[in-house]
């Protein structure tokens, strides 16, 4: 095997290429990048929009990184089609480049819910550096911003734009923020914090139409109400890129289907990153892309590395608050006891979920202290014993639960 092709120059593509070299592969590695930039970590887009990271620090690795590893990267050279037999990548010029093995790492794209007027000027998604630059450019003379989507990314985009001095509102379709991590009370504490920072929050609201002639002037919602807006960022989730795989006849469901070796339904084609569906799961998170890319690279070289899936971290930061959400954080049905402590002024919300006296779930927001121990206690279904109230206090000694 002398030639390995990688479609996609994001985290998965780059880590796969790096792993191939580290594993001793001496042949040709060629990456096809849709964008005209070398690899940059996507979280840096938020950092730059917020004014916390200058453009010069966008990139993760120095300019010579690819050349140092004899990795060929073709910028602004998206694959138009995957050709089978012989295996090759066809570019938009029609030129075909042949390979022995191929890695599909073309990631995902932003989902835009169907609504009239979504193609008007002033409506953006945030996925690429060019998106970030376009948003910042348009923002200069268009200051009333609405972010459609109250999930993690929507909230971070809202805060970043508010940090640039924009007047920002978040519109969320569901009846609370972060529905997967937070229950209604926790989400209310989060909402308070966000509103205190000057960002308006509107829940349970579906957008029907983007108003304006050639550029956006407002939004109309399904309940008939409307608001003014100059700029909209759609943050309604991502969808795996499936076009190349579908056209090549590979197995595709919600993502490109791969086995425990990251191999697609074609023996010489592997996939890793946001485009992948493994054991029925799609991820869209950095740790999954990273580990999948490493495993895929090793399997491409027949080094046999099993990938069993990724356990998503139950800890994240939202609106500057530390948040841990573990186990049955939002239980349904009977038989559960929930005990809470909150301080909305501090953005503090702690809740434990008990089943027959055992810890089966917890939400810990607004403090890091005790988050890891309570997480471990939930994994072990520890008996909370007589400590039902004390466990929520600052500085509780979790070793008492043993």
């Amino acid at each position, binding site marked *: 095997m002398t030639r390995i092709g990688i479609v996609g120059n994001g*985290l998965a593509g780059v*880590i796969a290429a*790096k792993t191939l070299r580290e594993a001793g592969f001496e042949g040709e590695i060629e990456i096809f990048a849709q964008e005209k930039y070398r690899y940059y*970590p996507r*979280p*840096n887009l938020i*950092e730059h929009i917020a004014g916390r990271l200058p453009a010069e620090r966008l*990139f*993760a*690795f120095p300019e010579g990184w690819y050349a140092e590893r004899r990795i060929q990267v073709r910028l602004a050279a998206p694959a138009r089609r995957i050709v089978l037999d012989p295996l090759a990548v066809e570019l938009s010029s029609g030129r075909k480049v042949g390979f022995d093995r191929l890695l599909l790492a073309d990631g995902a794209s932003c989902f835009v819910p169907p609504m009239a007027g979504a193609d008007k000027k002033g409506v953006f998604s945030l996925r690429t550096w060019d998106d970030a630059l376009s948003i910042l450019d348009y923002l200069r003379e268009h200051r009333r911003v609405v972010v459609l989507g109250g999930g993690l990314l929507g909230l971070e985009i809202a805060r970043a734009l508010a940090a640039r001095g924009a007047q920002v509102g978040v519109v969320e379709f569901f009846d609370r923020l972060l529905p997967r991590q937070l229950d209604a009370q926790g989400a209310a504490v989060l909402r308070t914090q966000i509103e205190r920072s000057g960002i308006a929050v509107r829940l349970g609201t579906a957008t029907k139409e983007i108003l304006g002639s050639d550029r956006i002037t407002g939004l109309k919602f399904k309940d008939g109400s409307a608001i003014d807006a100059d700029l909209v960022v759609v943050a309604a989730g991502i969808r795996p890129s499936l076009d190349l795989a579908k056209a090549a006849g590979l197995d595709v469901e919600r993502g490109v289907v791969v086995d425990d070796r990251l191999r697609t339904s074609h023996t010489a084609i592997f996939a890793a990153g946001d485009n992948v569906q493994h054991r029925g799961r799609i991820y869209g998170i*950095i*740790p999954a892309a*990273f580990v999948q890319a490493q495993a895929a690279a090793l399997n491409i070289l027949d080094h046999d590395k099993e990938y069993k899936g990724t356990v998503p*971290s139950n*800890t*994240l*930061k939202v609106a500057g608050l530390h948040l841990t959400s573990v186990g049955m954080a939002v239980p349904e049905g009977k038989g559960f006891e929930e005990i809470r402590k909150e301080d909305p002024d501090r953005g503090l919300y702690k809740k434990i979920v008990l089943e027959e006296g055992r810890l089966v779930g917890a939400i810990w927001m607004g403090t*890091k202290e005790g*988050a*890891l121990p309570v997480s471990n206690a939930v994994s072990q279904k520890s008996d909370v014993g007589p400590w039902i109230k004390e466990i929520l206090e600052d500085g509780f000694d979790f070793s008492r639960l043993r």
Partner: protein
Amino acid sequence: MDKYECQACGYIYDPALGDPEHGVKPGTKFEDLPDDWTCPQCGVGKDFFQKVS
């Protein structure tokens, strides 16, 4: 003390500087960082870091 590099984003943890914004004092070795410490730049865990040689 060894510096460590985040493999996902290139962030360098320098023990001499620590990570004061997240409660890590200067002079803290990488090995002594808490288990739940994450890359300040991109959020991945300690297991994504590699010693810089």
